[in-house]
C-alpha cells in the first residue's frame, strides 16, 4: 500500500436523507480539486466544484475506459484490476469506439420520440397507481410505482418480456449494492448475460419492432455487443429513474410548501423535474475519469493514470453556479445545467426518456392523491446510502 497518509477517502455519510455529506461542501469551498485515496491503494483526485467537473467531463484527455479505473469505495471487487469494457459496453469506452456504438442508439431517444411515447407512459403510470391504491394505505410506493413504471417502459422499448422483471430487477440490485459479495455479483452478471444473450439470439433470428430488433436488423453488431448494449440500457434505464421517482416523492412529501406549489402550478412541472434531479443527485458516488497524460486542471497537476472522481452531489450544490443551492426551489430558472446526467459525450443517452417518466409520473401521482403522506416516520424510511445509486428502498404512503 502506497497510500499517502494525507489522502482521505470519499465521504458518504449524510446529515439527512436529502443533503450530501457535509465534508463535500467544505472541500468545494477550500479545495475543489483535492486528493482522494482509493481502497486499492491508488491516490487520485476528488473534484467538488461545478466548473471543474464540467471541464473534466468535456475533455477527451480524461478517459472513461474501464481498465484505467479505480473504484473509490469499499466493494467486493474494489481491489481487483479492472478489465477492459466488454464489447458493446460503450459507457466505459472512449472515441472512436464509443461514438460508433452510441450513434446506433441516439435516434431512438430523441426529444420528439419521447414526446410520442407520452400516452404509453401515462398508461403505465395510471395502472401502477391503480395497484398502489388497491393495496390501501400503508402501500409501498417503490414496489408499486417507482420501480414498475421505468421497468415497464424500458422493457417495452427494448423488447424485453416484462414477465422476466424479477430476474433483472434482483440482479441489478445486487450489482448496484456495495454490500454484495464477489460471488453474488459474478452470479448476477452471469444470470443477466445468459438471459439477454438468449433474447438477443431470438431477435437476430426474427427481428421485432423494438430497439433490440432494430439493432439486430442493422447487421452492424455482434451478438455479444448486442447483449451488452441490452444489459447497459436495461440496468441504466430502470434503476436510475426508479430511484428518482421514489426519492423524489419522499423529497416532495418532506417539503410541503414546494409540494403545494407543484400541485397548484402545473406549468412548473418541467422545471420541477430538473430541480429534483439537481437537488437529489442520485449518482452520489460520482462519475470517474482517468487522465491519459499529465495535465493542468485549474492550476492542479493531474498525472497520467490518476483517477478523478467528479462529485455530482457537490457540483450540483455549488453556490457559484446555483443560487441558494441547498434549497429545493421547484421553479428555479435555468435548471438544466445540473450535472445529474453527466456532461460531455457520455451525457446520459436516456435523459429525455427519464424526464418524461418523471414529469408524468410525479404530476399524476400528486393529482391523483391530494392527501398523499408518509405512512411511517421520516426517519424510518430506509435509504440506500450503501449503493452506487442513491434512493429509498421502500416508501410506505397513505392518502
Amino acid at each position, binding site marked *: 500500500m502506497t497510500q499517502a497518509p494525507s489522502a482521505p477517502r470519499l465521504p458518504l455519510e449524510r446529515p439527512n436523507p436529502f443533503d450530501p455529506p457535509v465534508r463535500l461542501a467544505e472541500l468545494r469551498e477550500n479545495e475543489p480539486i483535492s486528493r482522494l485515496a482509493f481502497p486499492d491503494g491508488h491516490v487520485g483526485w476528488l473534484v467538488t466544484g461545478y466548473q471543474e467537473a464540467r471541464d473534466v467531463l*468535456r475533455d477527451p484527455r480524461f478517459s472513461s475506459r474501464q481498465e484505467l479505473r479505480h473504484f473509490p469505495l469499499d466493494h467486493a471487487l474494489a481491489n481487483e484490476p479492472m478489465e477492459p469494457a466488454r464489447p458493446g459496453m460503450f459507457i466505459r469506452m472512449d472515441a472512436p469506439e464509443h461514438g460508433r456504438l452510441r450513434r446506433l442508439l*441516439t*435516434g431512438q431517444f430523441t426529444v420528439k420520440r419521447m414526446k410520442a411515447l407520452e400516452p404509453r407512459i401515462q398508461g403505465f403510470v395510471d395502472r401502477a397507481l391503480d395497484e398502489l391504491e388497491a393495496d390501501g394505505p400503508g402501500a409501498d410506493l417503490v414496489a408499486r410505482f417507482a420501480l414498475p413504471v421505468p421497468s415497464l417502459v424500458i422493457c417495452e422499448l427494448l423488447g424485453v418480456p416484462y414477465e422476466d422483471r424479477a430476474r433483472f430487477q434482483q440482479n441489478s440490485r445486487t450489482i448496484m449494492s456495495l454490500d454484495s459479495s464477489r460471488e453474488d455479483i459474478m452470479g448476477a452478471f452471469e444470470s443477466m448475460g445468459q438471459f439477454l444473450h438468449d433474447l438477443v439470439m431470438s431477435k437476430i433470428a426474427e427481428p421485432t419492432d423494438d430497439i433490440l430488433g432494430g439493432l439486430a436488423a442493422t447487421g452492424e453488431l455482434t451478438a455479444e455487443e448486442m447483449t451488452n448494449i441490452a444489459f447497459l440500457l436495461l440496468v441504466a434505464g430502470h434503476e436510475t429513474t426508479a430511484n428518482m421517482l421514489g426519492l423524489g416523492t419522499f423529497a416532495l412529501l418532506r417539503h410541503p410548501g414546494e409540494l403545494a406549489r407543484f400541485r397548484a402550478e402545473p406549468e412548473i412541472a418541467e422545471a420541477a423535474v430538473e430541480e429534483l434531479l439537481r437537488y437529489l443527485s442520485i449518482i452520489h458516488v460520482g462519475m470517474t475519469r482517468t487522465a491519459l497524460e499529465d495535465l493542468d486542471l485549474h492550476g492542479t497537476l493531474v498525472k497520467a493514470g490518476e483517477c478523478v472522481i467528479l462529485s455530482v452531489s457537490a457540483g450540483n450544490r455549488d453556490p457559484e453556479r446555483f443560487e441558494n443551492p441547498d434549497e429545493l426551489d421547484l421553479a428555479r430558472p435555468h435548471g438544466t*445545467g445540473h450535472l445529474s446526467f453527466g456532461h*460531455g*459525450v*457520455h*451525457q446520459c443517452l436516456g435523459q*429525455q426518456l427519464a424526464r418524461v417518466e418523471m414529469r408524468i409520473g410525479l404530476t399524476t401521482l400528486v393529482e391523483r392523491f391530494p392527501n398523499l403522506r408518509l405512512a411511517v416516520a421520516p426517519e424510518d424510511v430506509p435509504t440506500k446510502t450503501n449503493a452506487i445509486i442513491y434512493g429509498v428502498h421502500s416508501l410506505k404512503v397513505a392518502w
Partner: protein
Amino acid sequence: MNVEADRERCCGSGMCALTAPDVFDQDAETGYVLVLLPEPPREWHDDVRSAAGVCPSGAITVRE
C-alpha cells in the same frame, strides 16, 4: 445572431432541441442536431445562448 452546429461533435443528447425547440431539432434517424433557424429572431436569442451553454459536446457555435 448566427447559429452553427457541428454534427461531427454532436452526441445526440437532445439538450438543444429541449432548450430552444424553435431553433434546433434532431434528425429523426440519427438523433443528431439540425439547425432550423440559422439566424433566429431576437425572441429566441436567450434560449439559443442557453442551448449552446448546456450542449454537452460543445457542438453549437453562436456568433453575435
